[in-house]
């Protein structure tokens, strides 16, 4: 478990020498506890303190990088079992697989799809992460050719999937300098795979039949000098996969079994549940998810699920305040006020689009709070509305002087009306009722 600041403080020299760069030992202890400083920064630690702090400040799930350049991904470094305890930090990489029996053209088509596909949501670009390359032919040349075909069109992170070290070496000869994940070492050939991982400085995935033998194997690999490891927990049974990934996370963060303190890899093509396997991997601790061709609907859904699960639960996603248009609103179109909590914004926007009434959305800055909480906490108030109307030039956009406010902001209607000098209409509480409301109540 992570030590508390005071527990760490007891192990420090308490000289406040400032040589670590911090003003006092206590502030240094607080940084150590939060993982924001390294124990080595203190020159006066005794051996005992070094051992304890070294073990307790290292992230319980090792941080690994796959790929190089702009699209490289970082995985691991997770601290909790449930996202509500703090947050999940590094979202899983989703890798689309090609194999060495495909033509170069077919491979390139799939790679370009991963390279160029973007889904923009809540102001963020969501993309698939990289390419898995499977050895099916079982010999070095076709594998090297397939890797070459991938490399010819993109600089994406790669997972090289071959159980034969000779085949793996042929692939690494082509792309080994771009830090692909080597997949995978097993108890029978791990020495060979470790040699390759060291030679090319690549992370290494491990496969074994049980969690015990996986822990044992990771011990062997670190003894060989390979520390950037990933644990493969693929199984045709979703039950086995979920139980294994949960066990690995529990053993890692409780530091019960440090040999399991590595990110998890799942090949979702095992068994007949590609979607369900992806879902399980995204929600429950997968970090490298390899899937065969992903249908468009599944691609969108999994990118959005990944974004949802890896959103910091303490930080609501915010929309830039301003005047937004739905359709092509004229000068007599209704104006609806709401807050800049993205969920509120997108929900209302969706229902307004469905209503087919062109209109303006006036979005004010409530620091990402929903209507209900913004009203309760005083973050939504008449001065904010008045200033937003002036700032975004609303009076010049419409010929009328009527503002529709959310149902939950009804207690503010009088004060807003007074502050802005416009007529205020109280809208429905539920965005789902907005079409009916506009139909019945909206007259300029």
């Amino acid at each position, binding site marked *: 478990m992570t030590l508390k600041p005071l527990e760490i403080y007891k192990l420090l020299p308490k000289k406040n020498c400032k040589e670590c760069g911090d003003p006092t030992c206590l502030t240094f202890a607080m940084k150590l506890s939060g993982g924001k400083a390294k124990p080595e920064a203190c020159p006066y630690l005794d051996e005992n303190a070094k051992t304890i702090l070294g073990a307790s400040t290292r992230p319980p799930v090792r941080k690994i990088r796959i790929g190089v350049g702009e699209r490289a991904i970082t995985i691991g470094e997770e601290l909790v079992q449930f996202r509500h305890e703090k947050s999940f930090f590094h979202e899983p990489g989703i890798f689309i697989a090609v194999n060495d029996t495909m033509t170069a053209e077919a491979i390139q088509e799939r790679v370009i799809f991963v390279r160029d596909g973007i889904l923009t949501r809540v102001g963020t670009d969501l993309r698939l992460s990289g390419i898995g390359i499977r050895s099916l032919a079982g010999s070095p040349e076709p594998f090297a050719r397939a890797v070459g075909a991938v490399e010819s069109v993109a600089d994406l992170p790669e997972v090289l999937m071959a159980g034969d070290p000779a085949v793996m070496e042929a692939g690494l000869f082509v792309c080994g300098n771009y830090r692909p994940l080597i997949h995978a070492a097993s108890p029978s050939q791990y020495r060979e795979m470790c040699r390759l991982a060291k030679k090319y400085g690549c992370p290494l995935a491990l496969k074994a039949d049980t969690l015990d033998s996986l822990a044992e194997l990771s011990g062997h690999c670190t003894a060989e000098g390979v520390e950037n490891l990933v644990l493969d927990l693929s199984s045709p049974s979703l039950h086995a996969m979920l139980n294994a990934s949960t066990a690995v996370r529990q053993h890692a963060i409780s530091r019960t079994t440090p040999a399991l303190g590595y990110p998890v890899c799942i090949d979702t093509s095992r068994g007949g549940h590609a979607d369900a396997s992806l879902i399980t991997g995204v929600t429950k601790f997968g970090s490298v998810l390899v899937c065969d061709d992903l249908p468009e609907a599944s691609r969108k859904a999994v990118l959005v699920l990944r974004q949802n*699960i890896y959103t910091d639960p303490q930080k609501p996603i915010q929309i830039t305040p301003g005047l937004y248009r739905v359709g092509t609103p004229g000068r007599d179109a209704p104006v609806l006020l709401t807050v800049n909590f993205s969920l509120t914004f997108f929900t209302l926007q969706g229902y307004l689009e469905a209503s087919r009434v062109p209109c303006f959305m006036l979005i004010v800055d409530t620091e990402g709070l929903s209507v209900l909480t913004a009203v309760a906490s005083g973050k939504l108030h008449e001065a904010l509305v008045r200033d937003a109307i002036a700032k975004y030039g609303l009076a010049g956009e419409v010929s009328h002087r009527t503002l529709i406010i959310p149902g939950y902001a009804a207690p503010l209607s009088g004060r807003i009306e007074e502050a802005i000098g416009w007529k205020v209409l109280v809208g429905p509480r539920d965005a789902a009722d907005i079409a009916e409301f506009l139909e019945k109540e909206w007259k300029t």
Partner: protein
Amino acid sequence: MMGLSTLSEWTGRIGELVIGASHAEGGTRSHVVRIGGERDLPYIGTHPSGHKPLVAYELADDPSLWPAAATRYIGDWVHDTADWAAYAEKEYTPDLIRLHLTSTRHRGFSDTSRIGTTIESVLQATRLPLIVEGSDDPAMDSAVYQKIGEAAEGERILLGTAEAGRYRSVAAAAMAYGHSVIAQSPIDINLAKQLNILLRETGLPSDRIAIDPYTGALGYGFEYSYSVMERIRYSALKGDTDLAMPMISSATDSLTVKEVREAQGSEAEKTAVAWELYSMLPATIAGASIVCVRHPLSIAGLKSAIDSLWNGENVEGV
């Protein structure tokens, strides 16, 4: 994988809730379903504790107030609620039917006797256990829930939906006619707990409450619902008996989100199904015992994924 296993140090247990009554119990259902009973996280353990999550198919007595993506696929069956239910049971084999009385949403609705007839005809048309959603207007709640309760007497239905501001009519109908209640709170563990306490104070036993923490659609707040479900399950397993009721989750807005509305041609069906699967399967992983969908093609995929998560059954036999 064998050997090292999950670490469980739970003391609590989720209560059990029964839906449906067989002939022997005074009802007419071919089978009854049990939910809850877990002593660990969802699907965890060599043999997971408690009961497997179930899939409910949602339909509406007035299809004009139902998402187009759901009714389009079913076609003409939607014009007769009983036919719709019977067809869905036979073609798509959900575990339960959830009937939304959308006719009560019309302004000035007063025809409660028609609700009674609808429920009786649906009960005759399907042998599956039933969930019924009544009105959402306090002014008519009392009459509507009284009628639902009466029409389904003896069938031990799950009756929705109680909220903090309006729960008495639902609870009264459930107690008078032997049904259970869905208790919905707005994505907030404390409000969920508070409502359970309020319901208990009306005299409704804990084993007749299902928690609905409200589920935002995928991409539209789903993560808040996902975490509230995890927190509720966690607190219950830690021993909080006021939260130890099974949960129900519905992808209510999935079929009206922008992604589904804007998808063209056959992509529309696929996106609708993906949006339901990618929110309802995670809901079971977070702790929901009943997940509800509106697109009939979502049912088979969800049931087979739940089977594989539950006992490792591998449909493809790989």
